[in-house]
């Protein structure tokens, strides 16, 4: 019981120390919150990129044209013959928009059953998958796209402003929604629809018999490099050469091409944090210096130096944790509105929150170091005799 009261009193002491000068505490908390808000937002973007990268598969290859020419469909049979190629799906891209020109919708004309076999992470009811095989104009949506536009199975969807002319003489493409697919593990919003390549190929005026990409799944990720090389070698002397990379490498290039994001993110976080430690550290030092006499009295009353150190440490921990919680909570509220290429609509990654909290403990330790050490080494006699 006495221990309990001793601890309660101890906490009261910490609390009193924190609120010794309320304005100082408030502004220090403000500084800390801002630093952790910046940390949450910037690190959130960075970590969302890494997550996007982690979700890319090493055993899925993209066979792209080396020079942005259309790829002949006939390549499919040649690629499929290479040992180690488990699945193959040709892919033609049809970008367009729905109603508002800003609401872009992306259609992928492919063999939907093969495409889904290469990406088994997408779940879809079997009946819906069969339906797309029976209806030429049928499409399967990602759940994200369906939610965004309020589409459901049975709806007719018309893509306008596509770059592809139809046999009707315009560039509008109408599809029937027959299914919705969903990747339960994905945190990155993917918004596209799968259409039947046969229908698309017959309905377009130019470019029939060609696609933009072949999607290949190899039976073993360890053979990905060898198979990539073999595919490219097949067409070295053809008029349309290929360039095969794993999905992982393709996305890595794409993210790197967005610019020197990581570099600037880290620079800014470093600058913000350095400033923060200096500012808060000074406040802490000052707060301890002001209490020299009080600490001497505590020691005279029997507080060991370790308990004095713990007192300073507890104060600094409480401040830093409070600041980081406020800052990270703000970041988590704002982050879903940050739309940045591969990032968008997703919650702030948990790892960022965890790192932020860990970091705040580290900052607290560094900040408490000098003032705590000084408080420990205080000479009671000197401190009490000076005014």
């Amino acid at each position: 019981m006495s221990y309990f009261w001793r601890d309660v009193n101890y906490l009261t002491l910490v609390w009193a120390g924190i609120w010794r000068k309320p304005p100082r505490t408030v502004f220090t908390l403000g500084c800390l919150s801002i630093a952790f808000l910046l940390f949450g937002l910037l690190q959130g973007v960075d970590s969302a990129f890494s997550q996007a990268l982690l979700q890319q598969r090493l055993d899925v290859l993209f066979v792209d044209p080396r020079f942005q020419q259309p790829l002949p469909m006939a390549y499919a049979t040649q690629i499929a013959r290479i040992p180690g190629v488990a699945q193959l799906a040709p892919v033609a891209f049809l970008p367009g928009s729905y109603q508002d020109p800003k609401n872009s919708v992306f259609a992928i004309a492919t063999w939907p059953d093969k495409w889904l076999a290469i990406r088994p992470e997408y779940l879809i009811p079997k009946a819906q998958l069969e339906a797309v095989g029976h209806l030429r104009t049928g499409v399967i949506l990602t759940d994200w796209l369906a939610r965004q536009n309020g589409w459901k199975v049975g709806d007719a969807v018309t893509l306008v402003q596509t770059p592809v002319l139809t046999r009707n003489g315009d560039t509008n493409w109408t599809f029937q929604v027959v299914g919705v697919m969903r990747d339960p593990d994905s945190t990155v919003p993917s918004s596209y629809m799968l259409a039947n390549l046969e229908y698309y190929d017959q309905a377009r005026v130019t470019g029939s018999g060609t696609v933009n990409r072949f999607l290949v799944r190899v039976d073993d990720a360890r053979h990905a490099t060898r198979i990539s090389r073999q595919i490219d070698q097949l067409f070295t002397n053809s008029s349309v050469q290929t360039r095969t990379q794993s999905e992982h490498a393709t996305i890595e290039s794409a993210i790197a091409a967005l610019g020197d994001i990581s570099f600037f993110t880290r620079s800014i976080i470093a600058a913000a944090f350095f400033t923060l430690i200096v500012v808060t550290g000074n406040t802490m030092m000052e707060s301890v210096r002001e209490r020299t006499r009080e600490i001497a009295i505590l020691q005279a009353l029997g507080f060991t130096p370790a308990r004095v150190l713990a007192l300073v440490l507890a104060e600094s921990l409480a401040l830093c944790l409070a600041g980081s919680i406020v800052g990270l909570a703000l970041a988590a509220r704002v982050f879903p509105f940050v739309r940045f290429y591969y990032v968008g609509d997703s919650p702030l990654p948990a790892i960022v929150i965890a790192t932020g909290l860990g970091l705040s403990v580290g900052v607290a330790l560094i900040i408490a170091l000098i003032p705590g050490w000084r408080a420990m080494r205080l000479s009671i006699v000197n401190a009490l005799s000076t005014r």
Partner: protein
Amino acid sequence: MGSLRQIVAMTAMGLRGIPLRLGASLVIVIAFAGAVTVLICVLALAGSFVKTVGRTGRSDRVIVLSRGAESETVSSLSRENVATILDTAASKHSRDSKLIGSAEVIASVRLADGRTGLDTVVTLRGVSGNPLDLRPEIHLVSGRMFKAGLREMIVGRAAQRRLAGLEVGSRVALPEGDWTIVGAFESGQDWHESELLADSASVLAAFQRNSFNAVTVSLDSTAAFDDFKAALSSNPTLSVDVARESDYLAVLSAPTTRLLKAVAYTIGLLMCLGAAFACINAMYSVVSARTIEIATLRAIGYSAAPVLISVITEAMLLALTGALIGVALSWYVFNGSSVSTVPEKVLSTINYTMTIDQALIGLGILCACAVGLIGGLFPGLRAARLPIAAALRKV
């Protein structure tokens, strides 16, 4: 007169005391150095991009795209359309038609980034005629101009700096065999400096294409635009969009500009707010350290206003010192560094140089002064309202 002397005396006393309160003073200086460095850096990142785009587009040049095309990449114009457009341009023009229009082909080439080794997409722009006629801003810095009909290209300096294997004399693999880089050009740090330029007929042949992407036309004057646009729009054989080059590029780069600006303003604002908090905190401690000094002066007849002013002046001077360090730091570390990004809808890399100019430096210093003023205001008010008797009793 008396109050002015009081202000000077009070402020001088405060400033002389800075070495005694080194901790608090340093906090302000460091906080502002950090905030201004970050502020200038993020603003330069956005501003330099906008400037690079702005330098590229001219209002007396016009770009013609197929109707509805958002960018050159997705636009497509047949040879007949191109001929019609160039003829229309010639009829509206006093100069020789060959000099004023270029039918352009946009192809992309994958090259390795010199820094990361990862694939980067670079635009290969096929132009008709001599590119120097239509774009006088281009000038060769080494080598020579490509020759029409040959597999030759020239490379922009910005692309050359960033990417591996683009030295004059090196070879670039394209569908129908290797091409030679015969020269390097500068064009006033604009967008095209991130591109490769070649003869359009050769590019069409190499990529087995039969249609152009866009036509760029130089007008007699900015005012000739409406006339030219009307002529093309009324032509029933054409289905095209006509835009001033400057407007086209502004629209094309708008999403990226918006994004960069949003990031810059958010981060800049937060850093300023952080610096303001740090400054208020530090100045409170300065005021509390000077309590007795201030109370004594007030007791011997100094009024409240000089106290307030001296605290604010001290805060602003410290802020300014920090800002100058921040300016120097950001200039030293970031000025002239090369940044690359792929704007949305463009699909190929644009390299630009981060420049920290006088306007940015001025803005950084101005922000620091404003924030320093706020940071000094509240502690200053407290100092000015100090209860004299109570403060002196502490002695």
